[in-house]
C-alpha cells in the first residue's frame, strides 16, 4: 500500500458503514441517536480527507450537532408523552401489522435496483470527469471573494442559496403551526455545573461563529457554518434556562426569521434595478454585498435554528394551565 493514510481511510470507511448499520439496528432509540451523532462526526472527518472542509464543518455543526439536539429533544418529548420516564420506554415498541410478502419483495427489488444504479454510475464515471472546476477558476477574479465554495454559494449559484434560506423560513413557520398549542415536556434541570459551562463557553462560541463567517471569504467557513455555531449559543441559553422565550419576543423573532431572506432578496432587486441580472453583482461592490448578505443571513440562520430546536411558538399561557394547553388550544382552533 503506497499511502499509509489509505489504511486510515479504510478503517474510517469500515467504521462509518458499521455505525450506519448500528444506528438502524440497535433497539434503544437513545442509543440509535448517539450512534447517529458519532456516525455524522466520522463522516465529517472523511469529508476532510476528501478535501471538503467546508462541507465537513457544515455537516458537523448542522447535520450532526443541531440535528442531534433536535432528535434528543423529540425523544424526550415522546417519552414524556407516553409516560414512561426512563430508558425502558421505547424498547418494547409494539410491532405493527405484519408486512405482506409482495411488499417486502418489491422493496428489496427497489433497493437492489438503486444500489445497482449507483454502483454503475460510480464505476462508469470518468476518474476526473469534466467538472465545473475550470469555469469556477475562470470566474473567480470577478466573484469578489477568494474562496471558491463561498463564491459558488453567494455569487455564481446565489439563487440556490436564496431558496435555501427560504426553505429554512418555511420550516420554522411550519413547526410553529404544527406545534401550536402542543403541551411541552418539562425541560430537564441541568444544574449549576452546566450553567457555569454555558457562561464560560458562550463568549467563545460567539467569537468562533463570527470568525467562521468572516473567514469564509478566503478560507473554509461561511454563513451557514457560522450561523450553526451561533445557533449553539441559542441552544446553550435555552438548555441552561438563561433565556426563556417570552410571548412578547415573538415579533422580534419573526423579524429575525425573515431578515435573511429579506436582505438577500433586497440585494437581488437592487442589483436588478441597476440594469443587471439578479445576483450579477457589480465587480467593485461584490465583496461588500456578499459580506452584507452573509452577515445578515448568519444572524437569521442562527435564530431560525435555535427556534427550530425550541419548537413551540412562545404563546401566552397562565402558569397553571400548561398541561391542559394542548386540549384548549385545539378547542380554540376548532371554534
Amino acid at each position, binding site marked *: 500500500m503506497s499511502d499509509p493514510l489509505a489504511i486510515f481511510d479504510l478503517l474510517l470507511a469500515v467504521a462509518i458503514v458499521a455505525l450506519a448499520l448500528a444506528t438502524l439496528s440497535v433497539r434503544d432509540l437513545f442509543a440509535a441517536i448517539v450512534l447517529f451523532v458519532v456516525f455524522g462526526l466520522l463522516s465529517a472527518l472523511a469529508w476532510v480527507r476528501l478535501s471538503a472542509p467546508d462541507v465537513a464543518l457544515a455537516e458537523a455543526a448542522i447535520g450532526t450537532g443541531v440535528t442531534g439536539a433536535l432528535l434528543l429533544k423529540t425523544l424526550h418529548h415522546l417519552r414524556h408523552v407516553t409516560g414512561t420516564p426512563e*430508558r425502558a420506554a421505547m424498547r418494547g415498541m409494539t410491532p405493527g401489522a405484519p408486512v405482506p410478502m409482495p411488499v417486502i419483495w418489491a422493496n428489496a427489488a427497489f433497493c437492489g435496483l438503486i444500489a445497482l444504479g449507483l454502483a454503475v454510475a460510480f464505476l462508469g464515471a470518468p476518474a476526473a470527469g469534466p467538472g465545473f472546476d475550470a469555469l469556477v477558476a475562470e470566474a473567480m477574479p470577478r466573484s469578489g471573494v477568494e474562496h471558491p465554495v463561498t463564491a459558488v454559494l453567494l455569487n455564481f449559484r446565489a439563487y440556490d442559496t436564496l431558496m435555501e434560506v427560504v426553505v429554512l423560513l418555511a420550516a420554522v413557520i411550519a413547526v410553529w403551526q404544527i406545534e401550536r398549542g402542543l403541551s411541552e415536556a418539562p425541560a430537564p434541570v441541568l444544574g449549576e455545573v452546566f450553567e457555569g459551562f454555558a457562561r464560560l*463557553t458562550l463568549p467563545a462560541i460567539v467569537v468562533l461563529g463570527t470568525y467562521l463567517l468572516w473567514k469564509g471569504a478566503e478560507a473554509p467557513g461561511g454563513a451557514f457554518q457560522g450561523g450553526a455555531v451561533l445557533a449553539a449559543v441559542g441552544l446553550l441559553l435555552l438548555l441552561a434556562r438563561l433565556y426563556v422565550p417570552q410571548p412578547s419576543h415573538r415579533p422580534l423573532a419573526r423579524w429575525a426569521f425573515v431578515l435573511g431572506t429579506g436582505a438577500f432578496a433586497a440585494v437581488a432587486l437592487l442589483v436588478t434595478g441597476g440594469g443587471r441580472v439578479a445576483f450579477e453583482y457589480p465587480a467593485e461592490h461584490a465583496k461588500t454585498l456578499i459580506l452584507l448578505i452573509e452577515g445578515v443571513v448568519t444572524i437569521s440562520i442562527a435564530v431560525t435554528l435555535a427556534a427550530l430546536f425550541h419548537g413551540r411558538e412562545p404563546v401566552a399561557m397562565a402558569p397553571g394551565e400548561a398541561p391542559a394547553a394542548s386540549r384548549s388550544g385545539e378547542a380554540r382552533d376548532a371554534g
Partner: protein
Amino acid sequence: MADILAAGLMALGAVFFIAGSVGLLRFPDVYCRLHALTKADGLGLALIALGVALRADSFGEVFRILLIWFFVAVASATGGHLIAAHARRSDREAGEGEAGNV
C-alpha cells in the same frame, strides 16, 4: 528531534485513549466507565494536543490548539458530570420505586 518527540507524545496520547476505550467496554457500571473515560481521555487529549503543538508553524496555531484543548476538556468534564448526575438521579428513583413496590 522535535518531530520524534511530537510523535512519541501523540502515540502516548493514543495509548491513553485506547485505555479509556477498554475501560468503557470492560467496567461494570456507569460511574467506573465515566471514571476511566474522562481521566484517560483527558490525559490522552492533552498529550496529543501537546504533540501537535510541537509541530505547529506559528504561535497563532499553538494558541488555537491550546484553545481547542481547553474547550474540549471543559466540555467533556461537564458532559461527564451531567451523565453522572443523571445516572445518580435515575438510580435513586429506581431505588425508591422498588422500595415502594415492596
